[in-house]
């Protein structure tokens, strides 16, 4: 699945899975490094997904247009 299509929820679950894998004792060092990298990248994507712009309430008017509540 494309990174853009993943929901925040899916990405968080992914990171949880990665953490569980890293904690396994029989994982190879290379694998744990690439998982770690993947985890850090995904967390970065998660943070990036938080659109930190304050939103005003929009109203859908009769013409199907969105306008700010006056």
């Amino acid at each position, binding site marked *: 699945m494309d990174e853009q299509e993943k*929901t*925040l*929820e899916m990405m*968080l679950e992914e*990171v*949880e899975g*990665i*953490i569980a894998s*890293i*904690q396994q*004792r029989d*994982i190879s*060092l290379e694998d*744990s*490094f690439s998982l*770690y990298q993947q*985890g*850090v990248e995904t*967390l970065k994507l*998660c*943070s990036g997904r*938080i*659109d*930190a*712009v*304050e*939103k005003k*309430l*929009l*109203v*859908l008017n009769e013409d*199907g247009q*969105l306008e700010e*509540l006056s």
Partner: protein
Amino acid sequence: MTKNVYTVGQVNSYIRNMFAQDFMMSRIYVKGEVSNCKYHPSGHVYFTLKDESGSLGAVMFASNRKGLAFPMRNGDNVIVLGTVSVYERDGRYQLYAKEIILDGAGALYRRFEALKQELEEMGMFAEEYKQPIPRYAGRVGIVTASTGAAIRDIQNIAARRNPYTQLILYPALVQGEGAAESIVQGIRALDAMGLDVLIVGRGGGSMEDLWVFNEEEVARAIFDCETPVISAVGHETDVTIADFVADLRAPTPSAAAELAVFDLRKLLEDLKSLRMALNRGISDQLSDWQSRLKHQEERLYLLRPENLLNQRRSYCLDLEQRLTQQMERKLLEVKHRLSLCAQGLEGASPLKKLSQGYSVVTDIEGRSVVEAEQVRKGDPLRIQLFRGRLKAQVTEVLKDG
């Protein structure tokens, strides 16, 4: 016949006046069963009230529609407050309704139960159709009145939990005439926008006020909505058909906002703790590998050739030492035996005899002379003393016996 002839208009007008002057007729409650109920596009509602004894035509004008809070249908037993007056054109008197309420406690409740059962049997409340509410909705649609407690509560909660969530309101009528159509339209319009979740509801009110959320068309619109729907009607104790058909029922609009709008602080904390867990995971993994490496290093150190050589060398040294020791002991043993032999030998030494005055006599060829007959008179002899030698000559041979 010529006296007192009146026109139709005059008669109808006269009778109309009679009704108008009658105090009772100007404000009267009439109860009966509804039939021939017609909702005219103009907004007027025409119907007939009847009981066993007869019938009474009735109309509610669009301007009075506020007085009808529920969808009236044929067969409903109602109480109508209104005025009885004459419709001059037809010469008919009829009831001009101002308010209509369902007659008898529990009438609405019975209708609610009947519809609930019907929809339940159709499977519209089935768990398998319930969609999960997304945990991290970015855009939340709201179908409710643009004024009123519900939208204010939702806005407040959303602003507190996550001011970055986009709320989109479809201002809908939530009671009275046209409310059902308005709500259905709102659900469809917001559904078409592909939002993450919808809140459909209103603040508290009487059962009649909330009635639109028990309408079948509203229930169907919620059921057909592709976007997950949270119902939020009235207070905790108010349960409507919309609640059963929605993907999730919130007890109040505020609660719906809590369910639809995720807590940003909580998410940031979650991200932080995930990052920490990830770092802990990799550093645990690293120190684990480090200790494994150290262990192997130690094993390898013991096995390196230099070490093996040292081991061999010290083994050789050890062997050498043991060999020397053994050798020395053997030597001592031999020396000891030798000295014992030497002592024994000394006792038997000819030199000792010589020192005691004995001497060895040989002929000129060095043969020992042990018998007198070996020599003749005049033979040279050699005599070995303890110290020094003598040359001698036989002067006489004497035989024993």
